């Protein structure tokens, strides 16, 4: 065994990102590491590359225990990484990038000619013949990735981690990069391959390990696994508790909003969507299938190239989030830390943010009203805090999420979009948010819920729309909303 990880643990405030994960890598294999956002893939990789220090567990490389302290240290140990982007510097030449830190020198001065020759020789091993004096940034992303791989392999040479290396490549370029990776597998490197493109995983990998919620679900030969089983492992069926009541029994809802032909070129194919009053529409699909993009289009965050939105009274203007908010929409984004909370403001200030923006900054909400509002929501949503003026950044993930919810509930929206509302929060808060969704629906609010967890979608949705490859491919209602139906719809034609 080349690399062996045992019961790896890593905890962040409010979340346990890795919970006793085991992982093995053989020399001469491509081992796919799969999981949805927040499953722990990137934390595992960061522990391997020294970007994070692990809290517990052991790592051994070729039989020796290792503890990478930094990216440079991991490289010295033999672990190199190629990320989706930001690997190399586009403003330096190909030769400079390849040889950075190892330039041939005489009397302290870089020997440009020797450097060029070495760079060319190195690239020849990968079947590339480039003008090494050109800026790296002038080459295609595929070439840049191969140059990055070449650099990582020469620097490290034992383990190569490929973290979504193909996310911005087209089919021909993917083949080009894969040929290089296969060549490295022949040379006996252990390769960890992270990707959300299942076709590529089946194409390239020998074995696969699936993580979910910071735990290892399975490690197995890729040949013994079919697509539906794999997706089942990734999406899981965890929320099998009493909250999983099925909403379909409530029958059809009165129509409220209608979207027609919403699209943005290269981002999401045209789709129609009708939302009834008090209805919960769930969006299912894998990472990168266009779920978040659909929501952002509806909220005016991404400009739609065409499409119309209307309610019972007439057309709606959704050209910007501001317009969408005026139309009674709300949006709880996926990236809570960067797009949701303002970490340095207090809970009170975070709650009144949207309300104050709508009133206009010239008319501040009186402090007394602010306090009442904040206290009211802290009580209603059971936000666990020492007080309303505590910095929101100090709260746990679940409580932060409740504050963001409170921000929108204070606006009293008729249509609220929740993008991964339970991402990265603990199980208790998880159930509370599901319960809260049920309450809101009772009050007549309409919701669009995006989630990677199928059971969560089943628990809350009246209807589930399945996305694949940036397209709305299926709509399931009533008794069709069942785990196997959803997974089949996600897996269906990806096999072609």
């Amino acid at each position, binding site marked *: 065994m080349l690399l062996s990880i045992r019961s790896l643990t890593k905890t962040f405030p409010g979340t346990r990102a890795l919970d006793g994960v085991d992982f093995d890598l053989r020399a001469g294999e491509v081992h796919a590491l799969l999981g949805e956002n927040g499953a722990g893939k990137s934390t595992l990789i960061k522990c391997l590359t020294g970007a994070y220090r692990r809290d517990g567990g052991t790592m051994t490389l070729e039989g020796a225990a290792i503890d990478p302290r930094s990216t440079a240290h991991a490289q010295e140990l033999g672990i190199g990484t190629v990320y989706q982007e*930001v690997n190399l*510097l586009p*403003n330096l030449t190909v030769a400079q990038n390849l040889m950075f830190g190892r330039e041939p020198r005489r009397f*302290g001065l870089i020997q440009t000619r020797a450097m060029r020759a070495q760079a060319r020789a190195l690239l020849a091993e990968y079947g590339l013949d480039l003008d090494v004096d050109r800026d790296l940034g*002038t080459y295609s992303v595929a070439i840049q990735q191969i140059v990055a791989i070449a650099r990582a392999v020469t620097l490290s040479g034992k383990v190569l981690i490929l973290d979504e290396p193909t996310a911005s490549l087209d089919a021909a370029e993917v083949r080009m990069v894969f040929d290089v990776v296969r060549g490295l597998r022949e040379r006996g490197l252990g390769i960890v391959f992270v990707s959300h493109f299942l076709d590529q995983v089946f194409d390239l990998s020998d074995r696969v390990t699936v993580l979910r919620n910071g735990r290892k679900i399975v490690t197995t030969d890729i040949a013994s696994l079919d697509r539906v089983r794999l997706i089942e492992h990734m999406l899981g069926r965890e929320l099998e508790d009493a909250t999983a009541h099925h909403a379909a029994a409530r029958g059809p809802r009165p129509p409220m909003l209608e979207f027609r032909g919403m699209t943005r070129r290269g981002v999401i194919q045209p789709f129609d969507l009708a939302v009834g009053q008090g209805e919960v529409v769930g969006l299912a699909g894998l990472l990168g299938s266009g779920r978040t993009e659909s929501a952002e289009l509806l909220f005016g965050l991404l400009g739609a190239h065409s499409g119309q939105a209307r309610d019972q009274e007439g057309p709606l203007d959704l050209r910007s989030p501001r317009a969408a908010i005026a139309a009674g929409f709300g949006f709880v984004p996926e990236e809570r830390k960067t797009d949701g909370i303002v970490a340095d403001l207090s809970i009170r200030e975070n709650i009144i943010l949207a309300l104050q923006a709508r009133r206009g900054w010239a008319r501040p909400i009186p402090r007394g009203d602010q306090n009442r509002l904040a206290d009211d929501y802290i009580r209603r949503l059971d936000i666990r805090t020492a007080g309303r003026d505590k910095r929101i950044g100090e709260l746990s993930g679940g409580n932060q999420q409740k504050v963001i919810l409170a921000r929108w509930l204070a606006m009293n929206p008729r249509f609220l979009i929740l993008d991964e509302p339970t991402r990265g929060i603990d199980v208790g808060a998880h159930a509370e948010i599901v319960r809260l969704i049920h309450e809101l629906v009772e009050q007549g609010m309409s919701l669009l819920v995006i989630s990677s967890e199928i059971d969560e979608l089943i628990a809350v949705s009246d209807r589930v729309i399945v996305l694949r490859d940036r397209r709305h491919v299926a709509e399931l209602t009533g008794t069709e909303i069942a785990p196997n139906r959803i997974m089949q719809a996600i897996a269906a034609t990806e096999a072609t």
Partner: protein
Amino acid sequence: MNTRALPLYVTIGIFLLAYLVFWLQFPNILSTRVIGNLLTDNAYLGIVAVGMTLVILSGGIDLSVGSVIAFSGVFIAVLLRDTSLHPLAVFAILLALTTAFGAGMGFLIDRLAMPAFIVTLAGMFLARGAAYILSIDSVPIQHPFYDWLQSLYWLMPGKGRLRLIGMVMVATFILGMIVAHKTRFGASVYALGGGEATARLMGVRQGRTTVLVYAFSGAMAGLSGIVFSIYTGSGYSLATVGTELTAIAAVVIGGTLLTGGAGYMFGTFVGVLTMGLIQTYIVFDGSLSSWWTKIVIGVLLLAFILLQKALLKLSRMRLAKGVS
């Protein structure tokens, strides 16, 4: 084609064009006397611009250099007036002082993760204030060694005189080119300017590089101060106000990207000469207000910033095409 060198070619083109226009109007511009004066008069600016180029390449900025030049002049003048130290010893003390000053600013920028703008702005006030404390009035420098330094020149063919300080500037630019383009330190500077996070991933020692960059700029500012004191024969705390901005302008006109990571030391040399040429033209013309220099420099700066934006867009478009 590689777009990297395009701003440099544009800079050289503009300089040659300006020279041509100048020559059509005043044929004797081609004489080595004018060229000698161009190098002599802009020596202090060129030297400080060498340091500034490196700072800007690293993605930073150094606003303190103008004040450091003034401080250097007063420091030298006061020390030569009040002590019996030899000027060379004074130069050594001064260079150690300004280098340490720059290194200190670099240390703060790196350790406290503060914007270079703020730290060097504080440095600007500090150095200017220190100059005032030494002397409010202009202090003349009277020393035989200084007279000798001022009298040194190389008589070029055509009776033009390349004075010592002009030679020092040319030598400084050669040094700057070696540092920027031929050392690992220089490569690290470009890497930092290209992207700090990526540079760290590639093994750049960010702290060390940052400190060295500002130390280098401090040393250049000190050397520029020495040259300026030889040029003017005095030290005055109100001198070279705004020189840091002129130096930044020269760097940008020289084709260096203000956000860092791309540019050439030689471009800055041409940038300094271009600015000097405009000034010389206004002197030759005689009827123009010298403020026209500022206007032309303003226009040139704007043109270069637009050019760089356009180039950036062009390379991005090409990249996008490469992906699809």
